[in-house]
């Protein structure tokens, strides 16, 4: 059985926290350049230009693209043939977050208790998801999530009778309510099906798919295309100051569900939707 020392996980997580916050991913960069050509609002065009400039300043000065360097969300795909040695994986991940946020001069935004609200001063704990998969590798994805957009996310427990029209209405309503608050242009992650919690997890996971990559399920791809068009006709535009670039993309992930339900979770993410992965 392949052994992986958890200190490797700590190092990888620390580096990914920094990289995710300093460098905008190529898919989003490309989407900025495409949308600036297509944007019709002069204010919107100007804002998209500032976002491109900002990502270049962040890269050149080695500083975070956005001051909200997020709560660290970590996805682990752990091969069932792997034996993790040297300590607890959970502690190793949190140690990586601690290290990355300190060494990268990233903002520590996590409070210890939702009501007492004392800053933990090291951005831990992370929100961690584990998935056991076949194989002998561990894939870790770090996705720091800012709360300007996270706060605008919603979940709907629709009736089966609401069907696809209900889903479309829910997505548009969530985007409409988010308006300028979520730092548009946004990326919309949708989780469809499963249970209350599974839908929210899928919506978060949907944000990891690169911008420009559609669902492989034909009727879901069709829904994504239709919804992206509809969202970009709402007029919200960059920063909510008008225009056609409200969303850069929408990704919908699905899962089987119960005969009595149709959960729809919408996780809104800003124009710096961050995620970096590494295979150990």
């Amino acid at each position, binding site marked *: 059985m392949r052994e992986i020392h958890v200190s490797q996980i700590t190092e990888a997580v620390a580096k990914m926290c920094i990289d995710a916050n300093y460098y905008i991913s190529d898919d989003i960069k490309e989407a900025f350049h495409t949308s600036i050509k297509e944007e*019709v*609002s002069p*204010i*919107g065009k100007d*804002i998209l230009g*500032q*976002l491109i*400039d*900002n*990502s270049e*300043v*962040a890269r050149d*000065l*080695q*500083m*975070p*693209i*956005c*001051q*909200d*360097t997020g709560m660290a969300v970590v996805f682990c795909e752990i091969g069932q043939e792997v034996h993790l040695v040297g300590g607890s994986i959970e502690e190793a991940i949190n140690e990586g977050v601690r290290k990355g946020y300190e060494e990268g*001069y*990233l*903002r*520590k*935004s996590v409070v210890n208790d939702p009501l007492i*609200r004392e*800053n933990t*001063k090291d951005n831990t704990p992370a929100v961690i998801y584990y998935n056991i998969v076949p194989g002998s590798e561990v894939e870790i994805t770090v996705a720091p999530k800012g709360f*300007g957009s996270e*706060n605008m996310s919603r979940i709907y427990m629709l009736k089966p009778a609401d069907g696809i029209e209900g889903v479309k209405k829910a997505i548009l309503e969530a985007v409409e309510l988010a*308006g*300028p*608050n*979520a*730092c548009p242009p946004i990326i919309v992650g949708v989780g469809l099906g499963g249970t209350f919690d599974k839908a929210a997890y899928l919506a978060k996971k949907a944000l990891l798919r690169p911008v420009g990559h559609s669902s492989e399920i034909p009727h879901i791809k069709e829904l994504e295309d239709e919804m992206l068009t509809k969202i970009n*006709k*709402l*007029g*919200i*535009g960059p*920063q*909510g*100051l*008008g*225009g*056609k670039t409200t969303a850069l993309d929408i990704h919908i992930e699905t899962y089987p569900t119960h005969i009595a339900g149709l959960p729809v979770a919408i996780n809104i993410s*800003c*124009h*710096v939707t961050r995620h970096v992965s590494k295979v150990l």
Partner: protein
Amino acid sequence: MMKEITTPFTKDKVAELKAGDSVLISGTIYTARDAAHKRLIDQMNNGEELPFDLKDAIIYYVGPAPAKEGRVIGSAGPTTSYRMDSYTTPLLEKGLNGMIGKGKRSEEVIDSIKKHKAIYFAAVGGAAALISDRIKSVEIIAYDDLGTEAIRKIEVEKFPAIVVLDSEGNNLYVSEREKYRE
């Protein structure tokens, strides 16, 4: 249209600005976000003196990232303003004339801005590295224990902002969006 203003942000300067104006702000402004606002209001309610004079002041809603060596501040883009809505009216009553943040305000705040002749500016959310470059000095003046949420007195030079709500009640989030809604 691009305009330049220098603090203190007096009523005559407020009156010159209209929704849609792009503005470059220079001078002293103060940072405060969620927890700092709560403390300011608590202090006001207890009759205590506030850490800075609100008259003709501008508050920037920001929780900056830590500064690297050789820099005065880390990334420093605006945070979402509506979370400050329940604290805003008492501050406007005390003479606050400008707020910089991002996103929608409540109807109550929109009415207060009009009533007290103030301005709400939007800075570009996420453009935090760019904005950080326009901040020339930083001094923590209150609530040090709040870390990133402490109140900072900052000197800015040509800080870029857009007038979203002006003293006459014009709202750029509504007027611009209507132009592009299909």
